[in-house]
C-alpha cells in the first residue's frame, strides 16, 4: 500500500479548507500554501503547516508548479491534492508531481490530457460508443461540405464550433441556410484570432437543454462506480449557481442508462479517482459534453445523498486501496441542494463585488452544511474566484429540501459585499424550479422579471431608514445638548432661508 499520511493542498478558499477537514479526520497531516494576500485566510489558519509561495497574482503563486512541488518536498508531504481550478486539470503539473516522486490525487496525466481536448475526447467517446451531440466526426473544410451535413445531424439549428474553442469564442448558432455562410466566416475569423487555429466543425445545437452530470469513482483495480447524477442547469455566464442531487426529471431507466454510459466513458480513458461526466439532456435524450477530471465544486450534494466523503475516497484510491463498495452498494437517501454564494451583484449583470465583509452569520440547524472559505474578518479581493461559500441542505425529499434551502438562505446574513443570496432565494420560489422543468436558459428566460419583482418599491425600507435617521438625530441632539445650547444652529438660519426661497 502506498503511504499517504501527509497531503499538500495546492489551493485556497473553501475547497482547501474542505480537503484539510477530511485529512484531519483521517489522521493525515496537512500542508497549506498561500499567497501574500492570503495570510489570514481560513485555509492557512486550519492547516498543520503553511508556506508562503508568492504574490497575490495566481500565476506567481497558486499556479507556480515549481514552487508548489518544492514546498511539498521540503515539508515531507507524500501527495498533492489540487482541489478544483488552478492546477487541478493541468496534465503537465500532474506529470511533474509524479516525476518528483510524489502522488497526484487525481487521474493519470494521460487521462487529464485526453479529456482536456474537445476534439480528442469527442473522438475517443465516439470510438467507445458514448453518445455525443450529433455532428461532424472531425474538421469540416468548406461551407458546401458543411451544408451537406446539416440534414444528417438532425437539421437546424446548428452550432458552428472552433475545434480549439472555449469560453464561447469561435462559436456561432445558425438557424437557417441563408445565415450559414456569414456565420461560418465569423466563427473562422474569431477562432483564428483567439486560438491561432481556424479549424471548424459543426454539430446539432441543442436549444434548451438541462445540464446533467454523473459522478464517477474508480480505483486502480479496475473497479468503477457511478454515484448518480447532479442537475446543474441553473447557470449564469455558463457557470453553475444551483445544483441538486438527484435530478427532478430523470426516470430510473434513464438514470441507469446515463450511469452506465458515464462508467463506460471513464473506462474508455482509463479513469482513476473521482471524476464527473457532463451531459446535455433534452427530453430523455442525452449527449456527452465533457469530462471533468477532478473533484467538482458541487460534489457535496452527492456526498450527502450517498453518505460518502469523496475526499476521503480520493485519498484511499491514491493509497491504492480498492473501493469499499460496489454499484449495488450505492444507496441514495433523500434530496440535497447546493447554492453557491458568490460575491456578485445579481441586480447588475452578476458583476463581481469586492470589499471587506462587515457582518457574517451562517445558518444553523439540522440538515445544513456550509463549506465556506471566508470569515467575518475576510476581505474579498479581486484576485480570485468570486465564490465565498457553498450552502448545502439535505432533506427527505425535494420539496422539503427547497423549503429548507429557503429557510437557510433567509438566515444567512452577509454584509459589506453583494452576494447571490437574493438570486438563490428567488430561484427557490420560482414555480419552474419547483416543478423541475428548468433548463440552462432559466436565467435568460426568467431573471429579468424575477429581478423587477424583487426590486419593486418597498415602503418598509423607507420607514426603517427614517427610523434609523431619527434615532441618530436624537443621539446627536443628546450628545451636543450639554456642551452648548447653540451647537446645532444651521449655517443659514431658517428665517433667512425662508426669505431666500420666497425671493
Amino acid at each position: 500500500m502506498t503511504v499517504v499520511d501527509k497531503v499538500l493542498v495546492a489551493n485556497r478558499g473553501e475547497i482547501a479548507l474542505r480537503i484539510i477537514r477530511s485529512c484531519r479526520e483521517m489522521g493525515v497531516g496537512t500542508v497549506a500554501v498561500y499567497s501574500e494576500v492570503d495570510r489570514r485566510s481560513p485555509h492557512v489558519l486550519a492547516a498543520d503547516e503553511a508556506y508562503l509561495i508568492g504574490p497575490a497574482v495566481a500565476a506567481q503563486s497558486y499556479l507556480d508548479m515549481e514552487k508548489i512541488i518544492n514546498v511539498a518536498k521540503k515539508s515531507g508531504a507524500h501527495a498533492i491534492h489540487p482541489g478544483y481550478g488552478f492546477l487541478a486539470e493541468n496534465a503537465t503539473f500532474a506529470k511533474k508531481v509524479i516525476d518528483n516522486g510524489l502522488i497526484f490525487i487525481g487521474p493519470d496525466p494521460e487521462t487529464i490530457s485526453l479529456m482536456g481536448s474537445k476534439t480528442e475526447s469527442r473522438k475517443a467517446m465516439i470510438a467507445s460508443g458514448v453518445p455525443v451531440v450529433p455532428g461532424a466526426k472531425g474538421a469540416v473544410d468548406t461551407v458546401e461540405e458543411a451544408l451537406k451535413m446539416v440534414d444528417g445531424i438532425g437539421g437546424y439549428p446548428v452550432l458552428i464550433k472552433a475545434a480549439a474553442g472555449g469560453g464561447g469564442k469561435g462559436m456561432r448558432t445558425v438557424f437557417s441556410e441563408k445565415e450559414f455562410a456569414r456565420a461560418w466566416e465569423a466563427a473562422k475569423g474569431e477562432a483564428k484570432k483567439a486560438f491561432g487555429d481556424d479549424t471548424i466543425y459543426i454539430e446539432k445545437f441543442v436549444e434548451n437543454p438541462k445540464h446533467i452530470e454523473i459522478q464517477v469513482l474508480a480505483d486502480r483495480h479496475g473497479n468503477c462506480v457511478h454515484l448518480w447524477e447532479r442537475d446543474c442547469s441553473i447557470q449564469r455566464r455558463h457557470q453553475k449557481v444551483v445544483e441538486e442531487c438527484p435530478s427532478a426529471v430523470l426516470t430510473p431507466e434513464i438514470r441507469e442508462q446515463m450511469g452506465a454510459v458515464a462508467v463506460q466513458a471513464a473506462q474508455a480513458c482509463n479513469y482513476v479517482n473521482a471524476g464527473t461526466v457532463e451531459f446535455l439532456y433534452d427530453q430523455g435524450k442525452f449527449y456527452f459534453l465533457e469530462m471533468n477530471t477532478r473533484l467538482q465544486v458541487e460534489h457535496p450534494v452527492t456526498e450527502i445523498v450517498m453518505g460518502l466523503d469523496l475526499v476521503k475516497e480520493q485519498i484511499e484510491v491514491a493509497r491504492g486501496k480498492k473501493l469499499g463498495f460496489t454499484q449495488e452498494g450505492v444507496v441514495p437517501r433523500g434530496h440535497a441542494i447546493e447554492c453557491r454564494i458568490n460575491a456578485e451583484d445579481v441586480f447588475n449583470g452578476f458583476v463581481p463585488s469586492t470589499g471587506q465583509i462587515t457582518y457574517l452569520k451562517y445558518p444553523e440547524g439540522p440538515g445544513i452544511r456550509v463549506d465556506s472559505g471566508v470569515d467575518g474578518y475576510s476581505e474579498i479581493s479581486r484576485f480570485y474566484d468570486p465564490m465565498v461559500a457553498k450552502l448545502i441542505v439535505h432533506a427527505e425529499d425535494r420539496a422539503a429540501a427547497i423549503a429548507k434551502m429557503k429557510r437557510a438562505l433567509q438566515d444567512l446574513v452577509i454584509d459589506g459585499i453583494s452576494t447571490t443570496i437574493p438570486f438563490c432565494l428567488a430561484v427557490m420560489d420560482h414555480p419552474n424550479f419547483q416543478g423541475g422543468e428548468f433548463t440552462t436558459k432559466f436565467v435568460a428566460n426568467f431573471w429579468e422579471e424575477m429581478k423587477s419583482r424583487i426590486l419593486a418599491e418597498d415602503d418598509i425600507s423607507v420607514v426603517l431608514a427614517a427610523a434609523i435617521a431619527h434615532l441618530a438625530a436624537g443621539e446627536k441632539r443628546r450628545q451636543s445638548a450639554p456642551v452648548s445650547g447653540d451647537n446645532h444652529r444651521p449655517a443659514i438660519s431658517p428665517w433667512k432661508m425662508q426669505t431666500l426661497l420666497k425671493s
Partner: protein
Amino acid sequence: MRYFISEKEGFKTIDVSEENGLFHVDYNGKHYQLDIERIDQQLYSVIRDGKVFKFIGDQKDTVVRILTNHVDREVTILNQRQKMEAELFGSGGAEEDLGDVKAPMPGMVLRVEVKTGDVVEVGQPLLVIEAMKMENEIRATKAGTVAEVLCSPQQAVERDDLLIRLND
C-alpha cells in the same frame, strides 16, 4: 418629527416619533408602529404587529442604507433644514446621470472598445475589465459621444474610478 425622502420626482414627507424604542411612523398614508432594538453595530431586530424580522442599517450623512430580505436599498432622508438647503442649492432629488462611466469593481482594464469622438448607443460595449478571473463588459447606459477616455489596457483600476466620459 417630519422628514423628507428625496426622490427623482421630488420630496415625500414622512413623520417619525419615538419613545423608549417604540417608533410611530406615518408614510404614504399608512401608520407603522415598530419596536426596533439594536442588536449589534448595524444589526437591528424589529417587532411589528407581533411579527419579528431583522435588518442591517447604517447611515452616511443623509443617506441611509437598509438591507432587508437580502436586498440593499439606499434612502436619502432630509430634515426640514436640509430640505431647504437642498432646494436652495439645487442639489435636491436623486443624482443626475452625468455620462461618467465609472469602474463597477476593482480590476484590470483588458480592452477599451471605443475612442474619443465615437458615437455610442445604449448597451454598446465600451471596455472590458478583468476581475476575479472573469471578463466584465462595461456597456453604455446612455447614448452619446465619447468625450474622453481616461484608462488604457493593462491599467489597474479601483471601484468608482472614472474610466470614460460621455457627452450627450
